[in-house]
C-alpha cells in the first residue's frame, strides 16, 4: 500500500519537490504560487491518495496581484487541476485572492509560524469570496509542504 506521501519515482515530480522546498526555505519565496500549483498538479496526477482531495470537487480560484501584473486561475474539475496564467471567462471564481508578494501568499497558506498578524497589519492579502475554499486549498498546500520537507 503506497504511503500517502510517496510519489513513486518520477523525475519531474522530484525536481518540482526540490524547487518547492527551496522556495519554502527562502526569504522572499520567489515564484511561490507557480511552484505550488505546478507541484500540486503533478502530485494530483501521480498520487491517487492525494487526488481524493479533489474527487467531485469543482472549484475556481483566482490569484492576482493588486495591480493585476500577475493573474493566475486555478480550476479544479474532472479530478484534475488546470492552471491558467490569466483570468478565465468561462469560470466563476469561488474565491479571489489578492496578494502583495509571494511571501504574503506563502504565509497565508502554510505553517508553522505563519505571520498572520503581520500579514493583516501590512494588508498583504485580500480575500473575496467563499473562505472555505481557501481553507481547503491551504490544507492541500500544507500536505505538499509535508511531502516536500519529508522527502529525502
Amino acid at each position: 500500500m503506497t504511503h500517502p506521501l510517496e510519489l513513486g519515482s518520477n523525475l519531474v515530480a522530484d525536481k518540482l519537490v526540490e524547487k518547492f522546498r527551496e522556495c519554502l526555505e527562502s526569504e522572499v519565496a520567489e515564484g511561490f504560487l507557480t511552484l505550488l500549483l505546478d507541484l500540486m498538479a503533478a502530485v494530483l496526477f501521480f498520487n491517487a491518495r492525494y487526488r481524493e482531495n479533489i474527487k467531485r470537487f469543482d472549484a475556481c480560484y483566482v490569484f492576482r496581484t493588486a495591480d493585476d501584473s500577475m493573474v493566475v486561475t486555478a480550476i479544479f474539475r474532472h479530478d484534475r487541476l488546470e492552471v491558467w496564467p490569466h483570468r478565465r471567462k468561462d469560470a466563476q471564481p469561488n474565491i479571489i485572492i489578492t496578494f502583495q508578494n509571494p511571501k504574503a501568499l506563502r504565509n497565508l497558506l502554510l505553517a508553522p509560524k505563519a505571520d498572520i498578524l503581520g500579514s493583516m497589519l501590512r494588508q498583504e492579502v485580500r480575500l473575496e469570496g467563499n473562505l472555505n475554499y481557501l481553507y481547503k486549498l491551504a490544507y492541500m498546500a500544507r500536505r505538499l509542504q509535508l511531502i516536500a520537507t519529508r522527502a529525502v
Partner: protein
Amino acid sequence: MASVASPAVTLSDIQLVDYTLETLGSLGELRTQCLRARAQVCIERAKYVTEYLRDFSVPEESAELRRARAMHYFLSNKAPLFFDDSLLAGTTTSKPFGAPVYPELTGLTIWPELDTMSTREKNPQRISPEDAEELNLRIFPYWMERNVLETTRTRCHNPPSMRLFERIVFFLAGKAGAVSHTVPCYRLGLEKGLNAIMAEAAAREAAVRGKGTLSAEEARQAEFWQAVRIALQGIVNYAGNLSRKAAELAEQEANPARKANFVRMAEVCSRVPANPASSFREALNAIWILHIAVHAENINMAVSPGRLDQILYPYYRRDIDSGSLAVQEALELLGCLWLKLNDNTNLVPETAEELFGGAGTVPAVTVGGVDENGQDAVNDLTYLMLRVTELLKTRDPSLNARYHYQVNPREYRDRVAEVVANTKAVPAFYNDVAAIATLENQGIPTRHARDYSVIGCVELSASGRSYDSSSSILFNLPAVLELTLYNGKRPVTGEEQIGPQTGDPASFRSFEDFWKAFTGQLGWLIEQAIELNECLGRTHQECLPTPLLSGLFEGPMDAGRDLIFGGALYNSSGATHIGFADTVDSISAIEKAVFLERKYTLPQIIEALGKDFAGAEELHAYLLYRTPKYGTDDPVAVKNSRNLVAFLYETYQRHVNYRGGRYRPAYWTMTNHAGQGKLAGALPNGRKAGRVFASGITPVSQAAADLAGCLLGVASLDALQIPGGEAFNLKYPAIQDQDDLKRFSQAIEAYFQCGGIQIQFNIMSYEMLLDAKAHPENYPELLVRVSGYSAYFKDLNDAMKEEIITRTAYDLRTGSAVAFPERAKSMLPGN
C-alpha cells in the same frame, strides 16, 4: 443586611473547612487528571450530524425538523463513554478532554491545520490522522457552501458589512461562530422530566393538527412541537445508552467501589432525564446530561447552567433532611459536576490562538442573590458550591456570586471575599441591586429580573426565559477613534475609505465638532454591525433552528415557536465593546489638549500618532500624564465616559432584532482587547502602537492612581445603560490578614452601593506574575481572572500575559497604585 438567619442555611461551618480534597473521595485524583488533560479534537458530532443531513435527511423537510432529526440521530448514536471514576455519567465529546467540531459554524477554519494542529506550538489540539481524513474528505466538503458565514454571504450578496467584519479590526460578528451564550431552563427538565415535556409537545401538536386545515403559522407550530419531541427523544436515548453501558461495565468490574458506582450510574441514567429527578444525585446527573445534549445542537460557547444553588436546592434539602445524603457526598457530587464542566474546550485555529488565545468555553454558574420575591436566596448549597470552587480551582465553571447588599447576610459577602482571597481569582461579584434594576429597565418583570443568572463571561440574563445571544457583536471602539482622526480611514487598512467622511480634523473648531464627527463614525459602524447581525440571524433562522434547546426553555413550548424565531419569553442581542477606557481617555485628551488648553492642534497630535510619538516626547508625556483619565473624578473624564455610555445605549436600544428584542450594550472583552490592541496604532491617550487595550470596563492600566477614585469612577457609569453586563478587573498584590479581608469586602460594598454592576479580581503581585511569565514551569496551575472568566496563565499568549501583568495593582492598605517594577516598564502601554 439580613439580621434573621435564613432557614436555608443550616451548616454549622459555612467555610466547610473539614472537607478537603484529601477527604473527598476520588475528587483529588479526578482533579489531577483534569488539569493534566490534553485537548483532542472530537469529530463524533460532526460525523453523525453530517451523515444524517447528507445521507438520510429529506431536503423538502423544514430546517426545524431536519435539525431535530439530526440531533436525534447523533444523540442516539453517541458513544456512552466512561473515562474515569466520576460519580456522574456522560461526556460532552468522545474524548476525555475534547474540542468538538461544529462545521455548520466555524469548524472549517481548522481545515488548513488538520495535519499540523497536533504539533503546533501554542495550545495544540491533537487529532488522529483517521479523524483528519474523515473531516477532510467526508465532512468538510459537505459544508463548504452550507456553513453560516457562506450561506449568509450568498443570501445577502456579500454585503459591505460582511466584508468589514472580515477585516477583523472593526467589529466581530459573533453569530458566524455561535449563538449559544444563554442560560437554558434545566429546572424544566428536572421537574417535569423529558417524557412529560415530549408528551406535552405531542398533545399540542395533535391539538393543532386536529383542526384540519392549518394556516402557515399553525403548520410551523405543529412542526416545531414535533421537532421538540424528536430532539428530546434523542436525549432520552443517549441516557438509556449510558445506563446500559454502565450496567455492562458494572458486570465486568472487579473493584467493588467502582462496580457500585457503575450500578448507581446505571440506575440514575435509567430514570433521568426522562423522568423527573427524585434525588440530588439524579438532579445533578440530569443537569449534566441535559448540558451535554444542549451542546449537540449549540456550540460550546457560554452555555451557562445558571443558578444551580437554587435549582438543585429542593433535592439537596430533601435528601439531607431524610438522611439519604450527607454533606460529604454532596460535595463529591458537586465536585464531579464541576470537573465534568471542564471536559470540553473550544476548537481553536492558529490565528485565533495568536490574536485571542486562552479563552475557554465559559459555562457560568451563578449563586446567591435574592429570589423572585426579593428575599435572601443564599442557602447551604451556595456555601457548598463556594467550597468546591475554592478546593478545585479549575478554569471552568466560571463561578459568579450575586450579592444583594440590602438583603444578603454580611457573612455571605465575607465568605465570597474569602474564597476570592484564597483562590486569588474567583468568583466574581455581581451587584443585585444594579443588575435587577437594569433588567427591569429592559422591560423584564421584577420577579424574573430577580431570578437573573450570568451568561459567561458576565452578561445578565433572565435565566431560562431570555434568549440573549449576548455575544452578537464585539465592537472595536478605538477603530472609531481612528476613523474620526483619519476622516473615515484607519492606518491598519491603509488608504481605503472605510467610513463616512466626517471632516478633516484640522477643521474642527470645537470639541463639539470633534464629538459630532466621532459619533457620526460610531453610529455608522454600529449600523454595519447590526445589519450583519440581522443577516446572520436570519440565516440561523433558515438553517439552524434549535428545537432541542427550545424544549428546555420557558416560552417556546407555549408559543409553539423555536427560540431562533423569538419563542423565548424575552429576547435581546448583546453588543460588547472593546477599548472603552482607551477611547474615553483619548477623547478626553483631545478635549483638554486641543480645545480647553489649546496646547496642541489635532493635526499635530495625529502626526505624532503616525510616528508612534517618535520625536514628540513632550507631547507624548503630556497626553499620558496630564490629560483627564477615566477612573478618576476629573470632571472631563467623568463627563466623557458617561456620554459615551449614554450614546451607545441610546443608539443600540433604538434597534430591535430579528427575534423582536432590543440590542443591549455591554463592556466585556474576553481577550479581544489584547488582539485588537496589537493591530491598532498609537492613540491620543498616550498609548503606543501595538499595545494592548484595557480590559472590559476597567480603567487604563496605571491611569487611575488611587483605588477610591478608580472604584467610584467605574461606579459612576449608569448601570441602567449597561444592560448587557460589564467586566471590571481589579488587582491587589495580596490580602494578608483579616483586616485586609475586611477592607477588601468593604471596598466591594461601597462600590456596589455607588451603583457598580460587577467586579472581579486577581490577587497577585507584579513580581509574581512577571516570574510566572518568565518561568511558566513553576506555575502550572496558576489561574488568573482574564475578563469575565478564568484561564491558566500558561495558556495565554504573550500579549495577554503582559496585559494581566500590567493591570494596575492597588495596595489595600494605602489605597494607592503600587509602583510598577522598573525593570519591566517597557511592557506598559504608554512606554
